[in-house]
């Protein structure tokens, strides 16, 4: 049994908590004992990205204390988002340049899919044939170096065909606070991404980040494009029969 900590992230909690459940179940099936420390709030990235470092530091310190004073085992800390993982794993050095607690925290931070891939899970596809479009987040890709792992996991599923986009590695335009500070540029980038997703022939969108997913899905809704959208953990869990009974993939067809 590999013990790990799971850090949910504020966005996942607000928008897609079942993703957290699925991520945990997948890890458990792969032989992990997952601990969810109570008292998580936010990694601090929104304020940090906006230039308010002092406010970011105050919130970040709470997370640092959580993993150094209260839950202080030397377990890996897994996050469902590459950008939050990069914040805690890399940018915390900028916020806390001479803090021993942070030095011991940073190397343990990991984007969950890379860790999960290394657990060598055996994924048995129980679903019907399906064509999916994959969108890996920029922070996952470029800051956490996660590129092949999610694709390898998806390719284990025998009934799943992964379609690539012409600009596969291009940013979808979410960017956190960028999405509301420069909404028209963010939306234009999102629109380009949505058009490609729509033309490439996928039936379903799978992404590694809740932020990207929400941005793309809500833009698709405005554009009238119909497509169910899954986080990677949701999709894998559903395909191998681990999905929570109350879980429904957010579908652009369900416009209220």
């Amino acid at each position, binding site marked *: 049994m590999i013990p790990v900590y799971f850090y949910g992230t504020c966005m996942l909690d607000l928008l897609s908590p079942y993703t957290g459940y699925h991520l945990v179940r997948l890890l458990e099936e792969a032989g992990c004992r997952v601990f969810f420390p109570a008292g998580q709030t936010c990694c601090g990235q929104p304020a940090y990205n906006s*230039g308010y*470092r002092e406010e970011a530091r105050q919130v970040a310190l709470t997370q640092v204390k959580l993993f150094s004073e209260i839950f202080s085992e030397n377990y890996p800390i897994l996050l469902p988002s590459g950008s939050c993982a990069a914040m805690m794993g890399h940018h915390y050095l900028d916020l806390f340049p001479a803090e021993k607690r942070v030095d011991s925290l940073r190397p343990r931070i990991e984007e969950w899919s890379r860790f999960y891939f290394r657990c060598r899970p055996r994924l048995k596809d129980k679903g019907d044939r399906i064509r999916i479009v994959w969108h890996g987040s920029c922070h996952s890709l*470029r800051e956490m170096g996660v590129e092949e792992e999610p694709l390898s996991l998806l390719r284990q599923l025998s009934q799943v065909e992964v379609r690539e986009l012409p600009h596969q590695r291009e940013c979808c335009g979410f960017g956190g606070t960028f999405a509301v500070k420069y909404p028209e*540029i963010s939306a234009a980038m999102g629109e380009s991404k949505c058009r490609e997703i729509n033309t490439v022939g996928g039936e379903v969108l799978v992404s590694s980040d809740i932020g990207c997913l929400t941005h793309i899905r809500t833009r698709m809704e405005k554009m009238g494009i119909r497509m169910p959208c899954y986080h990677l953990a949701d999709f894998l869990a559903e395909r191998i029969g681990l999905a929570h009974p109350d879980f429904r993939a957010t579908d652009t067809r369900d416009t209220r």
Partner: protein
Amino acid sequence: MSRFHTFIQEKLSQTTLRENYRAILDGNNIKRQQVIEEVNREEGNYFSVLRDFGHQTRKEILSHLCELLERLEKNCRINGMEVHYALDGKQACVLVEEIAGNHQARLLIKGKSMITEEIHLNRYLEKRGYEVIESDLGEYILQLDGDTPSHLVAPAIHKTASDFSAILQRKFPHEYLGEKDEEITAAVRNILRRKYMEADIGVSGVNFAVASGGALVLVENEGNGRLVTSLPRVHIALMSMEKVIEDFSQLPGLLKLLTVSATGQLITNYINIIRGPRRSGEQDGPEEVHLIILDNGRSRILADPILRESLLCIRCGACMDSCPVYAQITGHGYQSEIPGPIGKILMPQLRGLKMHPELPGMSSLCGACEEVCPVRIPIPRILLQLRAAAKKKTSVLDSGKERNSKEFFLWKMWSLIYRRTWVHRLFRKLLHRTTPVLSILFPYIPLLGRWSHHRSVPRFAKVTLDSLMKKNGNYLLSRKNGNP
């Protein structure tokens, strides 16, 4: 800021321009990738090693810039050049005017030079009665149209071939200049050939200045650089001070990084190495060569160890080719002399954060620029530092002046809620109870509400992660509360 947003909206509505841009940038990126693969075929991973070399070399140069500039000056003078220092753009323009005055010059012909764009040299000279002609094909067309560059290396990519043709036709209505690329090029070649002969002064930029050799290096594909720097009697070269390198041994690596990243070439058509004016017995060359070394805010940038890396730039333009923001708003969308990611970090530092308040934030921090930068400039990290500098005084020009009280209040509140677990728990409970109301009110929430201008309202979850973790047996309370 709303004037800015209106401008951006207008830029984004130019769909044909964006489509044309997309095609050009895609082409550039494919070409770059192909040539990098070619470079790596000879020796796997070679380009990455070259990038490390570029980064280290440029960093080292910056660490003893003063000394290198003194050495450059000394050796340039030995080679017969005159060397001048200009603290800012105004001084540089005045220097050029002085030299022009000393030679009773009327006509200056220019090679492409971003530093002259930065200091608005053309405008300064034209106001004082000088005629200035751009000799780079793209720059020449833009000049005829009263337009400005939109890309570091290919200044006129925002214009199509038929735009070129129309602009030429307007300027020379009595001559048939043709519509095909070759016809346009031939027409411009004829026009410019006459101008090279007539020009009193040739003005150029500098790609690298070799300190140990007292030499100026200028790379190009059209040949106009060679003509500008050898036909007129006087050659004035302007360089920003970080362009200096130690010796010729550094040149091949740096040039390869530049040409591969800029145009997807292993080598450019011309590499000009200028070591002074015409010597006795030589047939070609100007009688005088002047080098103007410019600061224009760069010594201030040198002060900070991270921001200093903005000056590693070798002006290849690869960052803007890969930038998804650039692909949407195009070069003029930045409203700065240097566009793209490098423009976003340089211009606010050179001109001050007050002049370009929107540039540091205009990025999703995707990191595509850093990924292609031949000298590994940490552009996202620098952007983050500039965003912080806007709020809190640092060495950056006009830092600490952005006191947006609404946003500051927002983050203060956010921090008060999110840094104390029990406060956050209450807040989360409150949020949970008010989710339906929240969804309706969402478009009216300050800042967050802007989401719904172009996107539907996000759906907030009906359960919390805490509750799911509790039910599944993963929830861990602190030891003080009886931890399993």
